[in-house]
């Protein structure tokens, strides 16, 4: 059950008492986008989430929407992103984040095999709740991909236990009721949810959505095993910040997490 590469890296960090940092990048956002992967890894990322852009990112706020539009506007495709990823050696586990339609269109088995062939060993699908996840979970398991499920502040206890039992790699605790996007403060719901999830699973529990600053990351990780940071980084990428500059942002998050 814990045979996934992405499990091991997070487990190592968490078992050593550390806090996991998983920064996000939209695949294909620029011609040299894989440079961001290398910069993130060098700056202390434990794993990296790669967004496979979708035309209708229903759970994303304006920043990730703009990033997805820009990537798709450049003509990027899943095929091109996976080719790019296969061509670099990042050194930390890679996790794909995308919407259900891209997975089902390819067919879950074929989709997961292609991820693995490119060196991606985790998958997060925000519009695939646990009740609808069976086919993708089976395909992921067969291919050796950790399908990570999301828990939300409104998830009732029984469902939370089921999510904890069926998730792989880690459990993604969605910090707030809303879309992705930067927030001024960390929602109290985030740490409350992380506490509840930790009570029902041995997997690492990472808080994501709205984690915007090193201080917020530290506050989230006081309860959770780590954080996912997306919009705060993608705003910088959209504004033209270089891989080196993003590396410094990730290093600051790393430092705050200890």
């Amino acid at each position: 059950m814990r045979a996934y590469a992405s499990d091991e890296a997070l487990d190592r960090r968490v078992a050593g008492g550390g806090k996991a940092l998983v920064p996000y990048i939209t695949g294909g956002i620029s011609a040299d986008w894989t440079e961001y992967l290398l910069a993130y890894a060098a700056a202390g990322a434990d794993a990296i989430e790669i967004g496979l852009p979708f035309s209708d990112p229903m759970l994303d706020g304006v920043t990730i929407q703009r990033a997805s539009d820009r990537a798709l506007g450049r003509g990027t495709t899943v095929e091109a992103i996976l080719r790019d990823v296969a061509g670099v050696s990042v050194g930390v586990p890679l996790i794909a984040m995308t919407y259900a339609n891209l997975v089902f269109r390819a067919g879950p088995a074929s989709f997961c095999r292609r991820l693995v062939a490119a060196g991606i060993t985790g998958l997060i699908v925000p519009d695939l709740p646990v009740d609808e996840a069976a086919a993708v979970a089976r395909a992921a398991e067969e291919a050796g991909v950790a399908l990570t499920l999301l828990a939300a502040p409104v998830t009732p206890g029984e469902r939370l236990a089921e999510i904890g039992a069926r998730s792989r790699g880690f459990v993604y605790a969605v910090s707030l009721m809303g879309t992705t996007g930067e927030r001024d403060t960390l929602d109290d719901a985030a740490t409350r949810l992380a506490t509840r999830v930790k009570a029902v699973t041995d997997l690492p529990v990472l808080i994501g959505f709205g984690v915007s600053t090193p201080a917020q990351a530290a506050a989230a990780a006081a309860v959770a095993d780590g954080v996912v940071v997306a919009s705060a980084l993608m705003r910088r990428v959209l504004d033209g910040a270089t891989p080196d500059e993003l590396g410094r942002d990730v290093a600051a998050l790393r430092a705050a997490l200890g």
Partner: protein
Amino acid sequence: MILMAEPAAGRFGDFGGRYVPESLVPACAELAAAFRDAWTDKTFRDELDELLAVYAGRPTPLTPARRLSAELGITLWLKREDLAHTGSHKINNVLGQALLARRLGRTRLIAETGAGQHGVATATAAALLGLSATIYMGSRDIERQRLNVFRMEMLGAEVVPVTGGSRTLKDATNEAMRAWVADVDSSHFLLGSVGGPHPYPWMVREFQRVIGTEARAQAPSLPDAVVACVGGGSNAAGTFAGFADTTARLIGVEASGGAAMTGGAPGVVHGTRSMVLQDAEGQVAEASSIAAGLDYPGIGPEHAHLGAIGRASYRTVTDAEVVTAIHRLARAEGIICALESAHAVAWVLREAGTPLLPAGSKVLLTLSGRGDKDMVALSEGAEA
């Protein structure tokens, strides 16, 4: 039984389901339970029936289209949803959902709209029941349906322009769902058609069933064919529901530029698995139709199922045929219908006398809405 019961586990054969973020699952489950409960509660049904009668103007008539019938060599009856309050069938579903929202203690309605008819109906129900309404509308649709924006605002709703993506109904739906996630405790997402996660396809079909039930009772005899335009497919689903257990052929007419059944493939968009216009990797395509209400790359999952099992068939007509049809119906019958509804008319005009609709056929056609909203665009030369 098709078009009758609650779909088991929210599925219509291979289609349907509830592909939503975890944050929305409890709200969908609560809504399904509330609708199941309300739909068998006589008090709720009586209150809705009363509103449909004294407020929305139901039953709407079934009008024999005498001159057009004679010209085409068929017998054509028109189910007149254009005569319902606010000018389309959308009010049937909206009144039902708004009462349900109130029953759930929600104070705000969130809706997407394409042509603006659903937005106007939602703004109307909000005013009637003392709820607030936020309507998401693509900025392209705002340009071509200005009159309806003005109506929504006059009714006290807030209209939020959506500038992402294709700036039409698909993008307005994304934005409405985003707004719902952020306010599930006090808002009800009042979806306007038979798409979306379970229970919407079932619930909206049931609220629109009144069209088919009335039409069945009003028709002098059983029609050979029942025809309706299809965007998401709510007026068609409601109409078809009244004839599911008959031998009548069920025909949905899509815009050629938004033909999910004809040109799409199975996919998951806006919370449901159905037929979707998309590329080889699953990026959703932008639809393109003269009728804003049909400018949508998906279709309700029960239609995908009805098509897959062959119980209903789905055809397309072009923008040019639609413009011709709206004029011909106006001249022949004195009825100016909506561009959406004119799709159904256009198909009948084209096929009357062919093997698809042989001479002498009895045809029942749902005229889903009136054309006032389209007059500015048509007068400015949205020509064939």
